[in-house]
C-alpha cells in the first residue's frame, strides 16, 4: 500500500484531529493500491497527533 496514492491527507488529518473526530478511519480507496487488493486501508494519527499512520485492512 502506497500512502502517497491515498488522496487528500490534509482532509484526513482534519477529520481525525477534530474534537468529535473518530480515533481511526476505515478508507475505501476503491482500487488496488493496498496490499491485499480489496481497496480498504485504515488510518490513524501517530502519537505526535499529526503524522498519519496507514495500514492495510
Amino acid at each position, binding site marked *: 500500500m502506497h500512502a502517497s496514492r491515498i488522496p487528500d491527507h490534509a482532509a484526513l488529518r482534519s477529520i481525525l484531529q477534530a474534537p*468529535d473526530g*473518530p480515533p481511526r478511519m476505515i478508507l475505501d480507496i476503491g482500487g488496488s493500491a493496498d496490499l491485499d487488493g480489496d481497496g480498504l486501508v485504515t488510518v490513524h494519527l501517530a502519537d505526535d497527533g499529526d503524522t498519519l499512520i496507514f495500514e492495510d485492512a
Partner: protein
Amino acid sequence: MAFTFSGEMVDLGGGRGWLDRPAADSVFRIDRQLGHLLQITDAGRTWGQQNVEFQTYLRVGYPIALDPDTPSIHQRGAAVDSNEAQRILAIMADHGWYRTVYRWVNGVWTLVEEWHFEHSPERDNHINDPAAPAAQIPSEEDDMLALRIKDGAGRSHLAALGVGVFRHFIEGDNPEWVKNVIRSDDAWVDVPLPQLPALLRTYGCDLQIWDVRDSAFVVLDPLDNTVRSGNMWSAANAARAKLTPIQVNSAETLAYVKELAGKA
C-alpha cells in the same frame, strides 16, 4: 491465519447479539441513559459471519466490510450497526462510539456508513462507571406478560400477553407453571379490567377479542370463531382465518381426504 475472538462474549439482551465486555458494558450504560434498549441491527460477528459480509463487499462493493482475517472490529466485539444511534451522536461520542467508514467520493472523504459505530475505550467518558445490572436488561423470556386480570366483581382471571398474542388460562393449563416459564421474575402483573384494552392495543392485539360471560373470562379464537375460556387469540391466526382455504378439485385428492376421514 483465521482470527479467533478471545474476549468475553456478552449477550446484549433483546436479541441484539453480543459484544466484548467493555463495549457491552458501554451499551448497557447507554441503555440506562436512554431509558430503553438502544436499537442495534448488528453487533459482534464470528469469522464466518464476517466472511459472508466480506464476500458480498468484494462482489458488489457495498456495504464496506473488512477481510475476516484483518479482522473487523465487529469480530473483536467492539462495533455495532444502529439506526437509532445516528440520532444521538453526542451521547454515542460521550460513551466513546464513533463512525469510522469513509470513501473517496467526488474528491471528498465522505462518511458512507452512517450506521457503523466503533467503541474506543480511551474516548469513553463513562468507562469507569458501573454498567447497569444485568437484571435491568429485559431478557428474551420476558417478552410476554403474565396477567392477573381483576374484574369488577373482584374475580381474578389469568392470561398471557405478548406481541400479537393473547392467551387465557384455565386451571388445566397449570398457569402458575406457565407463568414461571415465561417470566424471569415469576410474577403476575395485576391488571384492572378497564386497563386491559390499553395493554392489548400496546401489544398489537385487537380489542374485541375478549368478554366476561356468566362470570367467566372468554377469548375469541379466530381460527374456529369460538368464544370461550382457555382460548388464544393471535394476530397470525386472525390473518390465517381470512385466507381463502384451498378448494380441492382433484378426484384423487378428494378420495384420499375421504379415506383419511374414514380412519379418524
